[in-house]
């Protein structure tokens, strides 16, 4: 959300989300929390959730994956 340092996932291009999640998982991108979260998802799952967050449905903030 704006001004807080937490990035918004909704509407982000799928390739970008996938790349960031992989960087969190490997530790290439430092994090307070997302490194711990990213390790819970397989590459296939990361691709699936990245594709979801890129859809208009995700932008409502209320959609179900």
């Amino acid at each position: 959300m704006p001004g807080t340092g937490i990035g918004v996932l909704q509407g982000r291009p799928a390739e970008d989300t996938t790349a960031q999640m992989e960087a969190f998982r490997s530790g290439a991108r430092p994090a307070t929390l997302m490194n711990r979260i990213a390790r819970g998802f397989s590459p296939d799952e990361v691709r699936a959730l990245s594709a979801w967050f890129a859809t208009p449905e995700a932008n409502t903030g209320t959609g179900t994956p």
Partner: protein
Amino acid sequence: MTTRRALLGGTLAAPFLTRPGRAAGSARVVVVGGGYGGASCARALHAADPRLDVTLVEPNPEYVSCPFSNHVVAGLRDMDGQRFVLRSLGGVLPVNARALAIDPAAREVRLDGGALPYDRLILSPGIEMRFDALPGYDAAAAERFPHAWSAGPQTLLLRQQLAALPDEGTVLMSVPPNPYRCPPGPYERASLIAWFLKTRKPRAKLLVLDAKDAFSKQKLFQAAWKDLYPDTLEWVGQSAGGTVTGVDPDGTVQTDFGAHKADVVNIIPPQRAGRIASVCADRSGWCPVDPVTFESRIVPGIHVIGDAAIMGAMPKSAFAANAQAKVCAAAVAALLSDAQPEEPRLINTCYSLVKPGYAISVAGVYRPVRGVLADIEGAGGTSALDAPPETRALEAKYAEAWYHTITQQAFG
């Protein structure tokens, strides 16, 4: 049963339940409870399938948030930031009524002023205090020795008692055995009360009596306490006599190892699922559910989410309730259109403030394994024990951002 069904049949025509706009044949989903779980679920159901006839039942016109209420107790925030008026939830208008009973055979919820038929029922009632668990600690005693574990007047009562504490006074907290709402919550509260005492009444003390020897984020909390509150906060675990066995009318707190007197007594009692969900509860007092659909293991057609439910490793938190609400909504929408619910992945994150500008977190990622939600190995865990102050400050900032986002998403 026959009598009850006849009664329900006779009360069906309450005017506020008439919904002429409902499309013929659309499936009826009733959600009970307008907290983090219920409000999020009603929205997600409508978003998942706008044809669903979704009704949210909640007797209170506003919701008072437990997350961040420890900040209120310690005087760091006002109650205003905890209150959320229940308006239209993404197209679902809350019905201002109390759910009194469920008739699973007739698939009806009886309200104080009518009854609602359902095809699928989702219960998100939160907790109720077990006032039968600690001798001497009942609802009347809670007016003098607040639990403040359900946000609202209890939160303000504890805050007022702390503000009125004598300069050399003692505060006592009692922490229950697992499971209970918000596993790290008592330790965040202990930290923030210690902060309040250290900065406002430096000669006062806090004694924490715990029915457990191990707790959430324990190493992080204990390292912080040693560093920040060595002369203020004393924690006594189960094996050292921390289990509280009763509360005397004068506020003396009994344990197997002796009695304790204090000026302010905060008893967090054992809890169980909110009363309306008791039909789905097992002998533990909680409601076992399927980890894919959150459908009750005990009563088909009823789903239970949030603090009232048990389904394995996922803790009772607002974050968890919100995640479960979305998964449950997707599963219910699938079931009502004869589709197969997808196997979910769920996330939980709990931030705890140790002092202003210093927060720590615990996270988990969960998947269904042999009928329960299990931790995904290698994922989750706590903030690093050796993290620098900048990280603690960032986590405090992210905790605020999380609170803003989740309350907007649930109630906004």
